[in-house]
Structures are given as C-alpha cells and as structure tokens.
C-alpha cells in the first residue's frame, strides 16, 4: 500500500510529525474432537494505526478502513484526538536507529507450504492417540497458525518491516476414574512444522489428567512451594507492569524509588530478551521504531532499571529500552534467568512441600498495584524428595516482593511456550482445608 498521500495530507493539515503502522494478521485454526474434524476457521484483517504530533500533542487513530478516500477522515481523527489531550508530557516520532538486529527465525516460509490436509491429519492423529488411552472420556486436538506482518513508516524517514509466522498444536483430554473427572493439557509452539511431537503431547496431556485423579485440598498453612515453569511465567508476566517507568511515574508501582535496592533474593535475575529463539513474540524493534535490546532488569536480587518508551525516557532522562507498544510500555520476553540445578535435584531436597503445576484466575486475583495475589492452584504434595499425592482447589497467596525475596532455587529447565524456569519459594501461604 502507498501512504504518500496520507502523509502529505497530514502535514498539510498542520501535523508536524506523522507515523503509520500498517499491519496484517491471518489465522487458521483446526479443531478435532469425538474422533473427527469439527471445524476449520480462517480469518484475515489489516489494520492501520496512525499517530501524529499536532500542537505538541500526540493524536492517535486505529482503523481497518483505509482506502485513499478514507485518508481525510483518518487525519481528522488524529487531530481531534491530539486536541483533546491535556497531558504536558513531551511526545516523539523517532527517526530510527543506525541498524537493527536481524531475527530470521521469526518467519519460516516452509510453514505456509504445508498442505491443510496434512495439518488436519496431524490433529486427527493427536486426538486419536489420546482417546485410545484408558479412562479418557474426551480428547481434543487444536492446531492454530498465524501469519503476521508489520510496517512502520514515519515522516522522519523511518521505514521498517517485520514478518512473523507461528503455529501451535494443543492436546486436551478429560479422564474419568474412580468417579473423579480431571483434565489434562499440553501445547507446543513453533514455526517449524517438523518440531510437533504428537507422542509427547498426547502422553503429557494424558498423564497430567491421570496423575491428578483424586486430587484434594491440603491443610491451610505456610508451605515450601516449587512453582513449575508455566506458573512462574504466568505470575511474573502478571506483574510486569510494576517494572514499567510509566507505572512508576504515575504512582502505580510498588517499585517506585527502588532502583539499586534489593527486591529479591540473590537467586533472582530477571531479564527481558527480545531475541529469544524459542519465543514467537521475539522482535527486532518496538512500535516506535526503537531497536529492542537484551537487558537485566533485576540482577542477583537488585533492581537495575525500569523499562522505557520514548516519552518516559525523556521524563526520566534515559534512553528508550525499545519497549514502546500501543500507547504504553510492555516487555517482550520477560523471564527469570535459569539457574544451574535441574528440577529433579531441587525436588529431591524438599522434605515437605508442594509442587504447583497450574494456577487459575490470574486476570482477576492478581493486583499489580498493591502487589498482592491469591490464586486458585493445583499440583502435588512433595514428600521426602518425591512428588506424591495430587492437590487441587487450594489457593497460594503472597505479594510479588515477598515472593521474589523468598526464591531459594531457580531451575535450569526451560519449557517450550514458557519463558521462565521453575522456582522454589521458601514459604508461601496456602488456603485449603
């Protein structure tokens, strides 16, 4: 698409700097259960996100309707938006970095060349591998594929493009044994079709379900708790806003004024790694056109830095860290840096504790402003160094700083789809019987 006319119109109407992000998103999904293909879905849409500086304020507008005849209305919307802003913060359109890191793994052209029939066949096979197992009452396989592109073009001469694709294959099953119904789930994310291991997915989903049969709450008290990779990732990601300079600036973060202070145990190193090869959200630049970078946010328990976009960098007298997205700031791949011990080694040293493998309710039971959380959890009892009886319908409660300060081990395990390893918490409050 050619946006030259849109740019000249914007500048004519008094916008001093102008930028568009032109993006497209295509998705395909295949659902199999009851041993047959149930549905096949595709979707495609393109979006234009326009922003421009008018009288020193940043106006924005996002639309799916942007043929040449819509250009005047787009410019009017941006100007209207800018006129309404009263915040005095200085705003920027960026001329770009000298160079950007190349991330060729973000797009795999072979993925699109694989026939739809083969993708359907794979999902059918996965579902049938689960439904053959004992006690399985329901088996579902879902294949999802995405294909996205993003252009950033602005009046300062910046022109960037990135293209991503990716796929996920998920296995879910329900088992009924001894009158108890339990669910199991496992997923694998990649843009390399040859990486999908049906055996692994079917076995893991099935054993997750079967091993939780008979799960019940434990007594309410404090426990030593090992959080698995996905639980650690879920909790850390829910609290990522406290590391944002914007939250600090707006008095919304418990980390205000804490740079250089100890906010976690020595075992805690938290990094944002936008170049992580195993993550489909890796990216070379943010939506302001600033190159992304690897950074240690917390090192051996000490808070090093917040993350910034252009606007907040100016206020804090820093450089943007390449975390400007939408109208705010977010991490790209934020995670605990892995430690040295395996999960098995860590478990073998625990006399009495819990191994939490699933949490629910993270969107409502985590308060990122106060820092507290109380999450529905399930997992297993750890007794004398061994994983034993299943546990369900308990809550784990703490606050983020207490959690970070109580981290006594960080595993060396990283799991596909989750960026963080497993972490051991010395003490956390559990609600149960």
């Amino acid at each position: 698409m050619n946006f030259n006319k849109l740019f000249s119109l914007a500048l004519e109407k008094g916008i001093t700097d102008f930028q568009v992000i032109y993006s497209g998103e295509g998705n395909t999904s295949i659902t199999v259960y009851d041993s047959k293909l149930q549905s096949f879905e595709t979707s495609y849409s393109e979006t234009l996100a326009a922003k421009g500086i008018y009288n020193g304020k940043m106006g924005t507008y996002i639309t799916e309707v942007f043929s040449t005849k819509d250009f005047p209305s787009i410019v009017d919307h941006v100007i209207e938006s800018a006129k309404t802003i009263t915040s005095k913060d200085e705003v920027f359109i960026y001329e770009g970095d000298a160079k950007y890191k190349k991330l060729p793994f973000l797009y795999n052209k072979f993925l699109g060349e694989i026939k739809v029939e083969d993708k359907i066949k794979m999902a059918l096979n996965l579902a049938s591998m689960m439904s053959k197992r004992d006690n399985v009452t329901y088996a579902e396989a879902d294949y999802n594929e995405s294909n996205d592109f993003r252009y950033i073009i602005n009046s300062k001469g910046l022109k960037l493009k990135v293209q991503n694709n990716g796929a996920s294959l998920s296995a879910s099953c329900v088992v009924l044994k001894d009158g108890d119904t339990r669910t199991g789930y496992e997923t694998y994310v990649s843009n390399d079709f040859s990486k999908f291991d049906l055996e692994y997915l079917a076995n893991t989903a099935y054993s997750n379900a079967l091993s939780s049969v008979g799960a019940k709450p434990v007594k309410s008290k404090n426990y030593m708790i090992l959080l698995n990779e996905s639980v650690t990732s879920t909790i850390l990601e829910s609290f990522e806003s406290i590391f944002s300079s914007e939250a600090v600036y707006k008095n919304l973060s418990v980390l205000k004024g804490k740079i250089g202070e100890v906010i976690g145990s020595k075992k805690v190193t938290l990094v944002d790694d936008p170049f992580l090869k195993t993550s489909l959200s890796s990216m070379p630049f943010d939506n302001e056109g600033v190159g992304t970078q690897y950074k240690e946010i917390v090192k051996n328990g000490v808070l090093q830095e917040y993350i910034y976009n252009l606007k907040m960098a100016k206020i804090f007298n820093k450089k943007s860290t390449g975390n400007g997205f939408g109208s705010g700031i977010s991490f790209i791949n934020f995670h605990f840096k892995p430690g040295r011990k395996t999960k098995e080694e860590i478990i073998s040293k625990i006399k009495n504790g819990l191994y939490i493998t699933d949490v629910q309710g993270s969107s409502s039971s985590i308060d990122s402003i106060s820092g507290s959380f109380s999450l529905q959890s399930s997992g297993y009892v750890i007794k004398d160094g061994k994983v034993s009886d299943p546990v369900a319908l308990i809550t784990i409660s703490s606050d983020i700083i207490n959690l970070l300060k109580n981290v006594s081990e960080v595993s060396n395990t990283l799991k596909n789809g989750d960026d963080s390893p497993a972490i051991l918490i010395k003490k956390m409050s559990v609600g149960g019987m």
Partner: protein
Amino acid sequence: MIVSKKLMQEVINLSAKTGCDYVELFVEDTEENWLSVMGGEVDRASSSRIRGASLRLALGDFYVFGSTDKIDRASLLKLAFDLSQSFHDSPKPVTSLGALKKGKHHHIDIYPEDVTYEMRKDICLRSYNASKSYSSEIVQAFSRYNDSHQSVVIGKMDGRFVSDERIYTRLFCGAIASDGKSQETGFTGPGRMMGYELFKLISPEKEGEEAARMASVNLHAAPCPSGVMPVIINNGFGGVIFHESCGHALEATSVGRGVSIFTNKLGKQIANSCLSAVDDGTIENAWGSENFDDEGYPQIKRELIKNGILTSYMIDEIGGRKMKINSTHSSRTESYKICPTSRMSNTYIVPGKATLDEMLKGIKYGLYAKSLGGGSVVPATGDFNFAVTEGYMIRNGKIAEAVKGASLVGNGAEILMNIDMIGKELDLGQGMCGSVSGSIPVNVGQPPIRIQKITVGGKGA
C-alpha cells in the same frame, strides 16, 4: 447497508452450491472511542474502527468459518467459494432473504457519534475529582470513558435477514490509597447498552467516591486469613459466583462436547432448592442485552434453574445440532473475526426472602464479601475462583474488621448445593466475559446470598 442485500444473497447462493445446509453471513462495522484522565490530565483520547464480514457454512454439526476485512464483491465471493470447497453433497434449497428486520427493543437517546471528546472529558474529570478529594490518602486516581457503536447485519440461507445496532457506554473509576508504605486500590465500572444518557442514571461523582472509599478501606484492612468458612456474598457483581460456578458449565461449548459437570443433568437437581436463576438477554438497555443474537435470532429470557432443578442450557444453533436441542438464541461473538458460539447475556440469581441479619445470625466466624472482582472456571471439573475486592470478617453474627486480598475457590456442583439463604435486593454488575468467542459484555447479578462453607484464600494468619 454495509454490504448490499443483493451481494449478500449472491454470497449465500454461491456458498450453498456444494451441499451445506447452513449459511450465515455476518457483516459488522464498529466504532469505539475512549478517553482517560490520570493525575487530572487527559492522557489518552482516541478511537478505532473495525469493519468486515464473516461467513459460516455447516452440514450437520461440522462447520467451516472464514472472516475478512475485505467486503467488496470479489473478496466475499472468493471467501464463499473457498469455504464451499469443504462440502461435496447435493445442494439444499436456499430461501431468498426476506424483508430486513431491524432490532428496536432498546431505545438509545444520545449515540456515541454525537458525543464529543469534551463531553467524555467532563464525565472523567468529575469522577476523578471526586476520587481525589475523598481523602488525603488517595495518592492517585484515574477514570476512563469507553463507548462503542456496533452495527451488524446477518443474512442466512433460510431467508433470515436482521440488523442490530448495539450501543455501549461505560465509565471506569480507579483510586489508589497509600500510607507511604503500602498501597491499595478501589475500582468501579458501571455500564449499560445505551448512549451518553447513562449519566442520567449514574453519577460520575458517586462512582469516583466509591472507588476512593474502597481503596481507603483496603488500605486499613489486614490480609485475609485462609480456611474453609461460611461466606455471605453481597448483591450486584457478587453474581460472578453464579457466572463462574454454574453459568459457563451450562453453555453449549462445554455441555455439547460432554465436558461439563452439568452434562445430562436437565430436569435434575443441581442446586439447593432455594435457588432459581435466569439468563435474560431482553432486559431493556442492560449491559448484556441485544436485540438479536449473532445467529440472527431474537434475544429471549431463559429460565436456567427453577427451585434447584436444571431447566435449560444456553445453546446456539450450531452447538444445538450436536446436542440435538433447539437453540436458546444464545449465540454471541466479540466481532466478525471470531466464530460465534453459546454465551451468557444478563445472568442472575432470582431474589429470595432472607435479610442480611438473618444470614449473619449463627455465623461465628466467616467472611462478608461486599464487593467482588472477576474469576474463572474449568467447566469440565467445575473448579472455579474469584477475587474479593472488599471484604470483612464476620464474628459472632456481626460484620467485623475489613480484610484484603482474598480469593474464593470452590467446585460448582458442591457450591450450588451449599447456597442456603438468598436475600431480597437484586442488583446487576457489569463485566467483560472472556471465552471461546472472545470478550463480550455481560451482566452478572444476584441478591445477597449465603454459602455454608467455601475455601477462602489470603495471605493473613
């Protein structure tokens, strides 16, 4: 019209050529606006627009779905052709689209397109100022105005042809109270399926004050203790307990696959006999209402549970094919990009007779959950959770000290039997419900209710 009737008919005809027995063409044009005030300044004011179409073809209970933002003739016909290649059967008769039926059950006074940013700013500043001036403990406040106008047209192979205009307006107010050491929050978020006239019903000042009051209560509250105890849940958003513990497990998305705890339970007792519940998509201008569902059927009132007996599920037409039950007109989706499926509308527990005093009587040690946040559920097991945003301990039959940070967890099948008293004053609370077909506006609701025992989780001793 977003797409002409003639073109819609052409698309349906081409779709039906290869033998499917169901065609649904859904066309949407939606504009959304938002403005937010933080620290007394407007820091965000913007709008967005999506426009596109989706097409679904089915034969029996198998379907294919495609969506596109390209709504010209060539693109829509290509989509129809591509999707039709999944079927190889003898063509079924197509009934021509009838006269367009326009939804007009809900009256709108002031449409979002007639609301200026200045009007939105005025509302936000009024609630912001009310929060900030509540007390010196309120260190930050914010407020956000959201409104949207969704126009949809649905045409189907059986000649059904309807349009609906869905107007939503909502105000979010948030306040943060701090004593320099810790900080706590309070939120409110009233909304209706109506325009700017919402502010004749609700006062921005009262909402701002309420958010500040909650933040202040939480600042002085002790961490909630953990354990199993009796809990009284207040009316309004308290209804999230029914939404999570039961509502989702009554949707065709879980029942139709046989993965709900309430599969094969129609006509059976699933709740204490004091409990009746409905899902009513017709309540005038309510947050979860609409004229037609997203398969083009008029919204209705569904009696889900009568005196503890399960009387109805919530079913969409395609989901109903699998279950061999008729649709209850419950098909909803976030937008044309996502395939619609069975969802809730305005779901609530029917009022009973108990007073708060009667409920408190006899509770030696328990929790009064005055205000609730969101939650989630796994319908296959029925295990659910939700957050308490304002809570008090109950000691010797009296509401005692404030506690913070609690969440409640339970199992739907057990909890519904454990609800033993139901109060009088019904109120509804607004939420965004996230599920298979995306994020949609729903009301949850109930009078105050008492649960004999449920697991409370908090970090207190």
